[in-house]
């Protein structure tokens, strides 16, 4: 069969060049050569012998001066400033361990909360199984993920429901400039907190929760076809009752203080961190990243 070829967009059904304007996405696989055109290898790529190759399955995404591959699958890989939803998986004397769907659990230190926690009293504030909205602060070279609950819109979650989808689908849930998530909240009257880690909290009356869950399922499973925005909008419209349109309702009476009062349409990924360790086939130098 010979050498591997560069894939073109599926609709053309033939090999195409990868030099597309940004906005036209090319699927690449690990080991496929990427024409770098002078761009530097960014996340999801590696360089060997002057050529650049993809290291993950994903969409080729040139972001001058870098070229990167945005993964289409896999666990959540934390980035600083991401807002995420986690569930407490362990409680220790001075911190809790959160399952945020990342390769490692994330420790939330007692000082990373606005609460007056004494050492050994952490259990009183958060128990195993409870869920929180936190923000990723830093990542150290050993893979430890630092998170904090100090900040606006962060806190403990109560009530409602939680949906899990692939983190790769979160940008579609948010939409360009937040358009999709706004459509969802406006048409249902639900409160929604979107975690970059693929966890989404929904609250509202039962019908609203159900409709949001269904809309999220559509985005998660059907999103590869074109016209997703129209389909979701059409579904939400067809099940709406009068009074749901317009700005979404303020938090219900008795909504818990710590619950977020607006959705967190975290900004879609932008430029890669220039200082981020760029994967090559050499081991990383100590001190990087």
């Amino acid at each position: 069969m010979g050498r591997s070829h560069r894939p073109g967009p599926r609709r053309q059904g033939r090999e195409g060049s990868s030099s597309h304007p940004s906005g036209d996405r090319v699927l690449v696989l690990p080991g496929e050569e990427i024409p770098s055109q002078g761009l530097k290898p960014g996340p999801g790529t590696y360089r060997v012998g002057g050529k650049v190759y993809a290291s993950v399955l994903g969409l080729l995404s040139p972001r001058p001066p870098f070229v990167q591959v945005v993964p289409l699958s896999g666990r959540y890989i934390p980035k600083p400033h991401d807002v995420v939803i986690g569930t407490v998986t362990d409680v220790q004397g001075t911190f809790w361990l959160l399952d945020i769907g990342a390769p490692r659990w994330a420790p939330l230190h007692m000082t990373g909360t606005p609460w007056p926690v004494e050492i050994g009293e952490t259990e009183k504030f958060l128990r195993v199984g409870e869920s929180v909205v936190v923000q990723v602060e830093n990542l150290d070279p050993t893979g430890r993920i630092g998170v904090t609950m100090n900040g606006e819109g962060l806190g403990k979650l109560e009530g409602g429901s939680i949906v899990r989808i692939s983190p790769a689908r979160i940008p579609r849930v948010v939409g360009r400039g937040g358009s999709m998530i706004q459509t969802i909240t406006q048409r249902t009257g639900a409160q929604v907190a979107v975690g970059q880690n693929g966890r989404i909290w929904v609250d509202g009356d039962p019908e609203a929760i159900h409709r949001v869950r269904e809309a999220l399922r559509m985005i998660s499973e059907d999103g590869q076809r074109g016209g997703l925005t129209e389909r979701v909008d059409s579904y939400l419209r067809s099940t709406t009752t009068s009074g749901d349109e317009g700005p979404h309702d303020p938090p219900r009476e008795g909504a818990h203080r710590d619950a977020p009062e607006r959705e967190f349409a975290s900004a879609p990924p932008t430029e890669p961190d220039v200082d981020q360790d760029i994967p090559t086939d050499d081991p990383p130098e100590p001190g990087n990243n």
Partner: protein
Amino acid sequence: MGSVGAKDVPVLLSPEGLRIDGRRVDELRPIKIQAGALKHADGSAFVEWGANKVMAAVYGPREVHPRHLQQNTKAVIQCKYNMAAFSVDERKRPGLDRRSQEISKVIAEAFESVVFAEEFPRTSIDVYIEVLQANAGTRCAGLVAASVALADAGIPMADLLPAVAVGKAGGAIILDLKKEEDNFGEADLPMALVPQSGRLVLLQMEGHMTREELSKALDLGVKGCRDIYEVMKQALRDRYMVTPGQEGAA
């Protein structure tokens, strides 16, 4: 050729150069791969290769259990290859056996050669291979399934790992042994290729060969691997096909 004097030794190579199932010496058995066959694994693949049926699943990177296996600078890759009791003609007792342990080890090492494990220190990437139906070449089929599963799980690596077993029967070097060729042939050489570099990361041999035969076997195996590589890539593209009009958020 085979066991001299044994009954029922099949004719492995006809005078016309056809093998026991009608293939030529350099022909692969039919291969079908489905990426993302399972719902609950981080990545998965189901491979039907000749009469083999192999399922692979990847979980990770995730926290390491047991903790003492954790490595400070990279992810550990743990691989478990297992054959289901009903996957072979004579029922295999469930539980660890030495053959499966050896295969698990060489497959884990093959992946360690290509996975960028340094990106995930103190985690584990768990690869599970379950042979549901066996007909020779199960470690290669398992490796191929696991490789597709790793890509499906978004694990960063240098390349996919196509693999195939080359053998010797009827005096000829043959590609992709099936069961009778494995049982009655003179050599079995499974190998796995990194297409990007052209290097092998898995190589074993059972049986005997001359140097010329080995050279021919390596060439034939590498070519077979490149063909399998295309099937693997297509399986992933089929699962993740990108259609026009897909709005990126950025």
